[in-house]
Each structure stands twice: as C-alpha cells, then as structure tokens.
C-alpha cells in the first residue's frame, strides 16, 4: 500500500465542492517517476478566435524589459516563464484567390500552415497539423498520442463561414489532410476516457474475458476494413482509411495498456469524483477543461494537447465580464472605442484562463523543475485585428521552457511576414521532433 503524501482529494479553486480531481504527485506513473531525471517534453496549443485588441495586447518594448499591456496582465506572475511573439504571419489564412471566409481559414490554417480548400463539404482538405506531427513521435510513449479539447460544440446548422464547411472553423487539429481530430467538449467524458476505464480493479474472470473479446473485435473489424479496402475507390477509400487508422490506434493503445500505465497512476484516481458534465458557466467549463489538460500531462497520459477556448467565428456573449454583444459581431468594431474595450475585456478574460493553466503547471514539481518547465504552451489565434481579418502580426504567446529549448521572459519581434510555420518547426525541433519543413515554413526562428 502506498502512502499518499498529500490529501487524496483536492478541490478546484472556484469550483465549489462538486468537482474534485486527482491532482497529486501520486498520480504520476511510476515509470515517469523513475525517469524523473529527464521528464518528458509536453506541447500544448491553446486557440482563441476572432482576433484581439492589438493595441492592448502588444507590449511597447522588446527584449526582457517590457511592460505587460492590459490584456496580458493576468500573466504577470508568469512574465519570466513566457515569450510574447510578435510579427509572425499566417499567409495560408488569407484569401489567396478564394474570396471570403477568413474565420474558417484562420482556424483551419493555424496549426496546419496550409491553405484550406474552399468547400462546403466535398473534398474538405487542409493539411496535417503540427500537434499531430508531434503526436506521431511524442505520442508513442503515452496511452493517448494526443488530446483534443474544446468548449463549444460549434454551429450545428448552416455554414460557419462563407463557402467553408464548419469543420474548418471548429478544429485546429488535423490527423491528416482530410480528417479533423474531433474535440471533446464534455469534461466528464474527457476524464472517463483518460482515466475511468483504467482504474485498477480486481479483474474478474468475466472482465478478463471481455478484454480478450475486445482485442478479438478489433481484429475482426480490421479484417472487415481490409477486405473492403480492396473494393473501394475515390473518396470512399479515404473514409475507410480514417476507419483503419482509428482502429489501429486503438489497437495499439490496448496492446500498450499494460506497458504505459503503471499501477500507481490509476490507483490514485480511484477515489476521485468524476467531473460533472458541461458546467453552465463558461468560466467553470474552461477551468475544468484546463484541469483535464494539466492532469493528462501530469499523469503522462498524453504529451500533446490542442485546446480551443472557443471556435473560430464564435459569437458567444461573455456576460460574466459585462459583454452582452456576441464576440464575432464585436470583432468587427470599425474602430469604435466601446467595442474595442469590450473586445479587450474578452481577451483578458481568456488570458485569465491561460494564467490558470500556467499556475497549475508551475505548481507541479517534476524532476528538478516544474511541469511548466518541461512544456511548450502556445497560446493565440490566427487573426490579429478581427475587424479587417488581418492574418499577420498574429497575437502569440509561448509559455514554458520546453525542457531548455526556450529562454522565456522576453518580447521578441520577427520581421513582418515571417511565417508562423517557422515557429511551429522550431517548437517541434525543441520537443525533439525533427521536421525540416512544414506547411509554408522557410526555416526556423532564432532567439526563442
């Protein structure tokens, strides 16, 4: 019996008693503990839509000596653990001959750095996203190659942005050029997916048989798919490939289950309450989801995560910060001061959620540092000023030290039109994922 150095339950700040989560060191798998001298590197990508109030985002000074503008102020405690990155552009978010639809392209290109194919449905296509490239390497070690989180289901009728299928606005993670990685927006389901099925239990004979059946079902359906694969063509094949990929990934997880999950991990989770479903308050929702991400990293259940704080083009009204007009409507502010103030308030509110993530990650000791030290967390969006749909000088923050890959605590500015892809290539390299080129990259970024 292991003794727990900390209380078995820890309640989330601001959440009341309803949600209790396992936040303990005891949840760190023993394998990870054994390897604690070199904790693994984690990557997260947090997306916010509709551009920002750029005047209140960008620090005036560059280098280490800069003041945090209004929007970034919630990050004051983390000023030395992050970079403010200015000057990068996402050219693939621009029209480039495709007409309207900047919001769809903003999200679609953010991590793919590829031009989304303009389509309301047929042949949706963009490119594999940077997080999925990372997942292909970092994800080999963990039960889940990557985790995709969101807070909004997304529009369920009509199109999301002129001429573009909603898949572009609602996803930033793409498994391959035509398969978006579906986000989970219900924290309870995230928790159950990550942990519930892995809770240690006295396995009865019946449960052992279930496991045999499960493997055998996977073999069975895989054979079905392979047989079909000889008979289909065109886009049908593409759909079948999605199926095959999904089954193989699950199969791998089942096979590796014993290998990647140490008992200590799940035994600690056993006594915890499962989070409630989607909380009514957006803020609570965001916080529980942040906790899920941090928990997944802490337990080394995954090392790669994307998280959309809202879908691109979202017209959510942030009444909790006194904004009752929809975010997207406001983003077309036309210089109106009152609107710009409201946008600023929304931006700052999102930033508070990010600060919460950084607080949490810094509080977790790992090896000779913190979880944050071993992570690279990119925060930002694919539009600068939403009013005119600017795709350059993007608002981007990079937090954490990436295990030494990043020297934070500065505001760095790159030459105009430097591709955002260069940042992603550099981040991937820092995490030990070698990519020479990605999307429209032209090289790596110096001085991160």
């Amino acid at each position, binding site marked *: 019996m292991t003794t727990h150095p900390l209380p078995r339950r820890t309640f989330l700040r601001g959440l009341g008693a309803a949600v209790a989560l396992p936040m303990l060191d005891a949840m760190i798998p023993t394998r990870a503990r054994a390897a604690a001298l070199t904790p693994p590197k984690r990557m997260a990508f947090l997306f916010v839509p509709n551009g920002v109030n750029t005047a209140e985002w960008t620090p005036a000074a560059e280098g280490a000596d800069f003041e945090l503008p209004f929007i970034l102020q919630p990050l004051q405690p983390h000023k030395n653990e992050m970079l403010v990155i200015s000057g990068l552009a996402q050219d693939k978010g621009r029209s480039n001959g495709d007409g309207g639809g900047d919001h769809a392209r903003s999200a679609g290109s953010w991590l793919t750095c590829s031009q989304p194919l303009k389509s309301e449905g047929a042949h949706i296509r963009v490119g594999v996203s940077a997080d999925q490239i990372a997942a292909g390497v970092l994800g080999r070690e963990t039960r889940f190659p990557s985790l995709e989180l969101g807070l909004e*289901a997304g529009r369920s009728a009509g199109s999301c942005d002129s001429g573009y299928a909603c*898949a572009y606005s609602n996803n930033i993670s793409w498994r391959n050029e035509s398969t978006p990685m*579906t986000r989970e927006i219900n924290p309870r389901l995230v928790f159950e997916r990550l942990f519930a099925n892995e809770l240690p239990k006295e396995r009865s004979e019946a449960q052992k048989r279930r496991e045999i059946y499960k493997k055998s*079902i996977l073999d*069975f359906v895989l054979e079905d798919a392979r047989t079909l694969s000889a008979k289909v063509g*065109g886009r049908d094949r593409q759909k*079948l490939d999605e199926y095959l990929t999904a089954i193989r990934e699950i199969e791998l997880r089942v096979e590796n289950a014993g290998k990647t999950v140490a008992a200590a991990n799940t035994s600690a989770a056993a006594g915890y309450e499962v989070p409630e479903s989607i909380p009514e308050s957006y803020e609570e929702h965001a916080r529980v989801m942040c906790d899920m991400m941090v928990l997944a990293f802490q337990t080394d259940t995954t090392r790669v995560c994307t998280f959309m704080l809202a879908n691109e083009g979202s017209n959510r009204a942030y009444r909790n910060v006194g904004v*009752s007009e929809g975010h997207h409507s406001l983003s077309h502010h036309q210089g109106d001061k009152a609107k710009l103030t409201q946008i600023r308030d929304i931006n700052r509110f999102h930033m508070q959620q990010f600060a919460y993530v950084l607080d949490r990650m810094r509080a977790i000791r790992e090896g000779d540092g913190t979880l944050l030290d071993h992570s690279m967390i990119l925060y930002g969006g694919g539009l600068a000023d939403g009013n005119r749909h600017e795709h350059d000088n993007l608002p981007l923050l990079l937090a954490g030290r990436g295990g030494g890959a990043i020297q934070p605590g500065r505001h760095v500015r790159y030459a105009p039109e430097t591709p955002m892809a260069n940042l992603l290539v550099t981040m991937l390299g820092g995490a030990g994922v070698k990519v020479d080129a990605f999307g429209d990259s032209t090289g790596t970024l110096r001085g991160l």
Partner: protein
Amino acid sequence: MYLADKMKFRFSATIFLLAGFTAWTVTAEPVKFAEHVKPALSRFCLGCHNNEKQKGDLNLSLYVDKANVPGDREVWQKVAEQLESREMPPEKKPQPGEDVRDMLIKFIDGQLSIADCTGPKNPGRVTIRRLNREEYQNTIRDLLGVEYRAEEIPGDEVGYGFDNIGDVLSLSPMLMEKYLAAAEEIVRQAIKLDAEPRPFVLQVKGDKFLSPSKDARPLEDGTLGLYREAEAGADFTAPRRGEYTVRIRAHGEQAGPEPPRMKVSVAGRELKTFAVPNWKSEIFELKTTLEAGTHRIAVAYLNNYSDQKNRDSKLRGDRNLFVHSVELTGPPGPTPAVPESHKRLIARMPQRGEEHAVARELLAEFSARAYRRPVAEAEVERLAGFVDLAMRNGGGFLEGMQTAVQAALCSPHFLFRWELDPPELKPGEARELNDFEVASRLSYFLWNSMPDAELLSLAGRGELRRDGNLERQAARMLQHWRAHSFLDNFVDQWLQIRNIWEVAIDPSVFKKWKEELKGMMKEEAELFFRAIVTEDRPLADLLDADFSFLNEKLARHYGIEGVKGGKFQRVTFPKDSPRGGVLTLGAVMVSTSTPTRTSPVIRGKWILQQMLGTPPPAPPPDVPQLEEQNAVNQTASLRQRFEQHRARVECANCHNRMDPLGFALENFDATGAWRDKDGKFPIDTIGKLPSGVSFAGPRDLKTALKSGSKFVRSFTEKLMTYALGRGLDYYDRCALDEVISKAGGNQSKLSGLVAGIVTSEPFLNRKTAGAAE
C-alpha cells in the same frame, strides 16, 4: 479535380445576381462573347493573362471567338470568383465599372450553369456515409429495440447545411472509441446473460453431515468418514415441487466378503441402498419427487466389518464408508424476464453441442439486418466465431452472442452505408444501385434509420424499383411515425433553428425573456412542419399559413390570447395576423438575431439563402461588415443608418437585396415578440426590391416570396441535398428540374417532391470513382 463544390457556389450566386426575387428575369439583350465579353477581357484582363505573359498560369488569349466555358469550367470558375471578390483586376490596374463587372460575371455564370439534359445523365457520386448520431440512434432502436441516447458521441460536422453529408462525416480515433464503447453498452442492454432459467443445484460436502454417533466423523479433507454403522444427515431446501436427483459421491475401504452398503433416506423415507465397492470415489444417483421446503437427506452405513486377525488374508481388514458430497439438483426455475431485444436476437437457445450451429442461424438473420443487405456464409461464420471464442474461454453462449453483435456494430459494414461498385466498371462509369442500396437510401432519407422488413423483403425479391413501388413506399414511409426524425431534422437544419441555442439573448435588454421559450419555439417549428407534411399541404403553406402550434407560455410571448396549459395545441391566427408560416416563427426570429437586437442583414441574408436559394456572395475579404449598432440612444434609426451605408457602391449591390427583406420583419424583435417601435423610432417595414416591387411588412413579403418559383426550387435543392448526402452539382440541374415539374412546380407538395426525388437519376444511380478523384 475539386470542381464540384465550387460549381454549386457559382450556381447559386448566378441566380442571385441575375434577378431580384420575384421573377427569374434575364437581361433583355443577350450578352455575346465577341461583342461584349471579349472587348472587356481585352481591356481589363489580357494585359497580364495573354499568350506571352501568363500570370497565375492563366491565359485568356486562348479564347478567341468563344469562351468554351463548359469545357474549361475550372478556368472560368476562377475568373468569375476573382471578379466577384474584387481581387481582380488588381487595385493598381484600371477597374471595370460595376456594370461591366456584373456583365462578365453573369455571362460566365450563365455559361457555367448550362447542363445538357438530353444526353446520358451524370448521376454524381456520393461519398460513403458514416451513420451520423441521429441515424446511429435510430438504427440501434430499429435493429435491436434498444433505446440508446448517443449523447457521448460528439455531434456531426455540417456540410452544405446538413449533418448527413458523406464528405464531412469523418471518423477520428476518438469517435471510433465512442462507437466501441457504445456497442458494448448496447449489447449489454440487448442481450441479458441471465436469460436462461437457472437449474437448481445444491451441493453439501460430506463433512457438513451431522450425526449423533461418534462413528460418523467429519474429516479434514472435507469428507465424512463412517467407521461403524451410523447415520448422518444434512438439510436441503428444495425451491419448488418437482423431480430431484440426489447424487452421492462416495468410496469405501473394502474388507470382508462384501462391499460397504450405503442407505440413502430423504425426509425419513428410505429410498435406496447402494453397494459401494470402489476404492476411488464415484457417484451414486437416485431420483425422487420432493415438495418445496426443507428436507433432510441422510446417508447410513449398514454393514461394518472389522477383523484384523483372520487367518484368511482376504478376510482380514477394516471396512469403512466415506461420503464426499451430496448434491441435489432439481427442476429449473422460471425463465427470467428478458427484453424484447433479447427474444428477437436469441430466438432459440442451443442444446449442448449445437451452439455454433444455432449462433450461425441467429447471426445470419441479425447480420443481414445490421448490414442492410444479404450476407455471405463466410461473414456469418466469422461472426459465429465469437461464440466459439466465448465458450473456449469459459463464457457462455449468450456472452458469445453479445460479443458477435458487438463486433457487428463496430464493423465498417454497419457504421458506413456502402455502395460498392462492381470491379468490372470503368472509372467514372455510372451504374444502377441495387435494390438493397436503394432501400437504405430510402430509409435513411425518410426515416434516418435502417430499412424495415417490408423494404428489405421487396429488395430481396428484386421488386423495389418495379411497378411504382418506390413511390408507394415513399408515401408509406412519409406518413410513418419514423418519418418524424427526418422531418424534425430537416426543418431544424433548413431553417437553421438549431442555432437558436447559440444566441445568448441578453436578459438585461429583454426582461421578459425566458430561456425555456427556445425549446418551445423549436417544437412549434417542428410541429408546424409535420402538419404541413401529414396534411399534405402545398409547400407554399410553409411560407404563409393561418395556423401554428402553441402552448400557453409561447402564445403569451407572442401576445396571443386564449391558449391554456403547457401542451402544444393547434392555434388558428386571425385573418389580419402577421404571424403564420416559417418566416415569422419565433425560432427563426431568434436564430437570426444578435443577443441584444435584431439584424435585418442576417434576416435578409437568411431569406435569400434559405428561402430563395440565392445567397449573396461573401463580402470581399477586406471590406468590413456594415456597421450595425443598437439603435437605442442613437440619433438616427437603424434603418436610416443602413441606408447611408448602402450608398457605398461596393456594398449596395448586395445590401440592396438583403436589407429590405430583413426590414420587412422588423416588427418581430430579437425574441420573436411583436413590437411597434425600436427604441424611440417607429418601425418602418416598407421596402423596394431592385426589381421594382414594393412591399410593406411580413404579409407582403410572404405574398412576394410565394409568387416566385425560387422558394420551391430552393426548398427542393435542399431536400435533394439531404436525400443524396452530397452538395448538388451543375449536372444535377436536370434531375432537379424534372423533380419540380413532376411535383407540380409552384403547387408542389413535399410528398410529390419526395416521390420525384426517390425516382430520380441521382437517387437511383451512382458514378464509380473517377480516375481524377
């Protein structure tokens, strides 16, 4: 190449640009290539796109005397798009006037929308469709009788306005996980493991038998040792009256001239005496009838023998009796109640040894329904393998059946609707769908679910496409309760009222608003649409009807008296009521508003796009949206400010069409309630269309919309999109025209359109994958 999608876009934009909405007018003077188009191209385009210089790989000098638009669709497509989005000509080059720009776009669009309806038809090709969430739920219900709420399965992506479009129904690993988990949960509900009557078995170990005699002794190995004549007994409770079997496991230590004799009595009655000549334990069995209740079963040793000194070595020794256990087995109990799903799946239980055969029999029936087609022997055999697997691992027949069904529910054959093309077809060649494929197309169109027995049996006999069966089946299906799923889903998506959940109405602006009204408004819309269909009314009634379905709260919100209670009831509006029809539905009014106010632009765009099928083109990338602000506390009314903006030429083109439509509905506020003033400004709903038609308020608007042909056409386009699971392409125009004209043009009813669609070329045929794909 990726052309199809753009075609659709252009197809719609054309109609928008061609005319206002009351009539499909064509410019008086036909535009000719040589006379009008060529000179404009020369002046504004050829400078950069000619034989020598081909910016963007485009050479427009190739088109000397005709445009060859249908032949070079992609080229002209792009040209029209660039013109429309004002990306071309580039800012620094001479710009064509609006009239010239329009003329070019119209000409190209006109050429692009030409489809040859005389030759061999192109039925198009739909990408195989994964069951969406609604279809999955309904299919599980109809296949197994299990009500499964697929809430843990994420919602489906939307394409072309609907959530059943093959191309966007993708499958991520996470979704597949959900399907695996769902299948496990579903089979547990569908097949109950404790479905078999449990036989009664009660075993008591020998050492639990009690005796007053010291010669009957419980031993450490669990047996009862009887060393001299003695009797020992134990109580057994029989659960019910019936014939029971008593099995005694015993052995004897042999000595003397005879084996040990063991007398068995039940409830004081001596039933049988056995000789126990065996050194190793064996079973001794007898049968008896018992009443329900507790009975004492006793074993007695009758013939002790002990002679250690006999000279005859054969007679020397000690005889003893050992009882290992006594087992009482009885008649099986009553069959436990099992759900209908279980009875259906497990039509019979196998005898020992015939499990595999019975599994095959049951799974053959099941898999044909699950896969919605005849299944091959080998497929059934593989499924039956799960029963063998379960039995090998100590699970029962039922556990094996659970696993087999679970596997089938995760198979691509179940999760996707396959239309496999025979290999002998050439790429791009069209083929007739087989009857089973058609049965699924019908059922997933009209029921969002699997085909029922009647459809499968018609398909099995090869009669589905014969003798008017398609029309007859469609009519039957449309009036079946299962059609509610289709009707509700279609109307929600057609009217885009699922978006009602996204509009966070500001309670500080609308003090009387209650969130519960949203669900009621949606229900009103669904009930109204169902009524139009079940009463077989013309589509025009969708725009203009004198009734709706309301409950007390919703009626009060609308300012309508006399409706009592929470139940929805049919309410007839007075003659002069502005309400009635989809345009003024609360659900539509809210879905097309912002949290704090109405938006005539969104409403106007909604009418153009959803009602007329003529969406305005997207604003050029760098032109911001028209400024709309809360009219309250402003010096000019919303309307006046709009008119100012429409003075800007690049905006006017589209906003002159959108805004008047939206303003006609200004009396309905952002919550769908009636108002006479917006802030301090009176509502002005008078509008004029570019075509010259004037109107005032919702009544005129409805009349105007009804009088044109676009409403029916656009509705049919959307219905076909839903039916086919793909966006319409230019070549679908032939089928579309035919469906509408067969259904009676402007007088069409949904039933007629459905009959037309299910017998149309694209519904019954499919093109094989082309080489270009």
